[in-house]
């Protein structure tokens, strides 16, 4: 149960989240409640005027399906999953900026929650914790001991030895190139 929106708006958010949530046959993790928790936290952190406007926008999205999906005579929540997808795509491609921005804003919340879930991160190969554990083996006073990429470390170390990596001082833009001096 979401704390920061009414039950009616929660139903719309749930339907929208189910539609936007990335998934395919073979990978559809049961993390809908988790995404709603994330959405709840984000909505709670919105500025006051957005806490009023966002639910209004969502109700408009729900009801506008009666017009845009005519003659289905259903609100967004009542549409089939396929029709919901078509409807959301219509909002994303709309020439009206406010329609696009509402969906974009909501998509941002769903995607942030979705791609931050450990199951999804593991599925896409984003093994961040393993990377952090591997590289953070020394204190802050010691230069990094473990390369993020062996290949990159070798490449840049070679350039550094040859003094060919590039200038590290001076102003940005107009400055000495490391291949040829500007006269």
């Amino acid at each position: 149960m979401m704390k920061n929106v009414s039950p009616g708006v929660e139903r719309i958010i749930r339907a929208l989240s189910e539609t936007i949530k990335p998934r395919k046959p073979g990978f559809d993790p049961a993390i809908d409640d988790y995404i709603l928790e994330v959405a709840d936290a984000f909505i709670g952190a919105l500025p006051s005027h957005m806490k009023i406007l966002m639910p209004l926008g969502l109700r408009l999205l729900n009801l506008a399906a009666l017009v845009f999906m005519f003659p289905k005579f259903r609100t967004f929540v009542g549409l089939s999953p396929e029709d919901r997808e078509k409807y959301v795509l219509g909002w994303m491609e709309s020439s009206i900026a406010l329609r696009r921005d509402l969906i974009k804003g909501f998509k941002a919340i769903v995607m942030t929650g979705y791609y931050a879930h450990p199951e999804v991160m593991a599925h896409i190969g984003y093994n961040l914790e393993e990377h952090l554990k591997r590289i953070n083996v020394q204190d802050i006073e010691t230069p990094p001991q473990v390369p993020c990429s062996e290949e990159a470390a070798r490449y840049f170390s070679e350039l550094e030895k040859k003094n060919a990596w590039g200038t590290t001082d001076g102003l940005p833009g107009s400055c000495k190139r490391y291949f040829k001096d500007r006269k």
Partner: protein
Amino acid sequence: MIVTGEQVNRDLEEKCQVLVIGSGAGGGAIAAELAEAGVDVLILEEGPYYTSKDFSTNPAKMIPMLYRDAGTSVIMGSPSIIFSEGRCVGGSTVINGGMCWRTPEKVLKRWQLEFGLNEITPKSMEPFYEKVEKIISVEPQHPNSLSKAEMLFHQANRKLDYLIRRNHRNQKNCTGEGLCVFGCPTDRKRSVLVTYIPKALAAGARLYADCKAERLLIKNGKAVGATASVLNRETAKRKHKMTIHAELVVVACGAIQTPAFLLGSKVGNSFKQVGKNFLCHPNTKVVGMFDEEVRYWAGVHQGHQVHEFLDEGILFALGGVPPALVSLSFPLFGRKSLELMEQWNHMIVGGMLIDDTTYGRVVRLPWGAPLAFYQIDDVEFERMLRGTALLSELFFVAGAKKVLLPFFQLQELNSIDEIKKIYEYKIKKSELELLTVHAFGTTRMASTPSRGVVNQWGEVHDCSRLFVVDGGIIPTSLGVNPQETIMALAARSGQYILENKQKFLA
């Protein structure tokens, strides 16, 4: 001393010599400068106080915690621009990528000619840059902290003979965690939170977090303090009032919040300049898709920057952002989004920053919140297209098999020969996906009051003992990351106040 909102259980009344409102790049730097000289400084920060012990790798947790409006701030326009700003002790320096560049010489020249800022020269700024660079540890990255993607990008730039520079970042032995935008969990990124704020506190400054400044107190044309609300951190609602009496006030809330604060206090706007001249370095992203694994996220954010096209107002770098933010760059959802993101380890995300050629505006809404407007013009749009074409070329030269674009009508290119489609398709401005983390100009410096809000020292023209030292005082687009410029100008203003102690501080 640090006081947080939860520690406050009654209305407060405080006194100090200098009140600094905002604890980011400008506020932190000037607070430390003054406190270390023996001035009694009180720092007000609207956001919460967190340390690296509170930081995690989960963006769903960190964004609502550290970002204003949970990262949903938008600059209105067609297209709208997502604006990310820190709202915490340390400000945006806690969530930025840590790039540090001195102000380009051509920009300082422009300030002299157009705004009469004749004393802000490369030579006069040199000691301040040096001081800032020492305090926040500005260094290029160690080879071990760079990803394979940085190597491929560097090689492509060399092949095309582009000027690619090792990025200067405020970091100490950064290992390449790539978590800059969620608060560095090891303090290797030397944000204001771990540099200037501890310096200020060690010198006796007081910091009140969860305290939002509401209004300036003005008496006989002089700033004499401010009123504030002590906030409940969870609800952001006011729980107590605070009044601060000061001999001098420094406002450093950022180029979007400061104008709203000044307008609400009815100060600084005699020449109707507050909130005008808004600049924001619009950004967009391009993604290269590679057959081999490149793991661009396994390494530091922006190890290099391409300065070849700075004179054209275009800057490139690889951006270390998490999968959620990458997925938002594309008009995809559902199955298509997942199929794209399953190639996460085969992607390199490149960003471009465009120099502004137009101005926007920040207004104050009736309930006090600011609202920013910015409409990219044709020149900026052309730069976006050119930047996209150049970055796409770089990715193909680096070995990409496909490049994904930020345009609704043209979403991908499959070869270097297809780059010309960027110019052949009728891409509409309104359908660009834009974002930014920089904001300037809204309380800009100028020698004449009709052209700006503050003078070269950040002193407000029409109100004495009131200074502004944040990105808003920068009068033009910089073309490069601004935090070092802001800190150096703040340090300079601090020194000016100290040299004129008789005038400003009783």
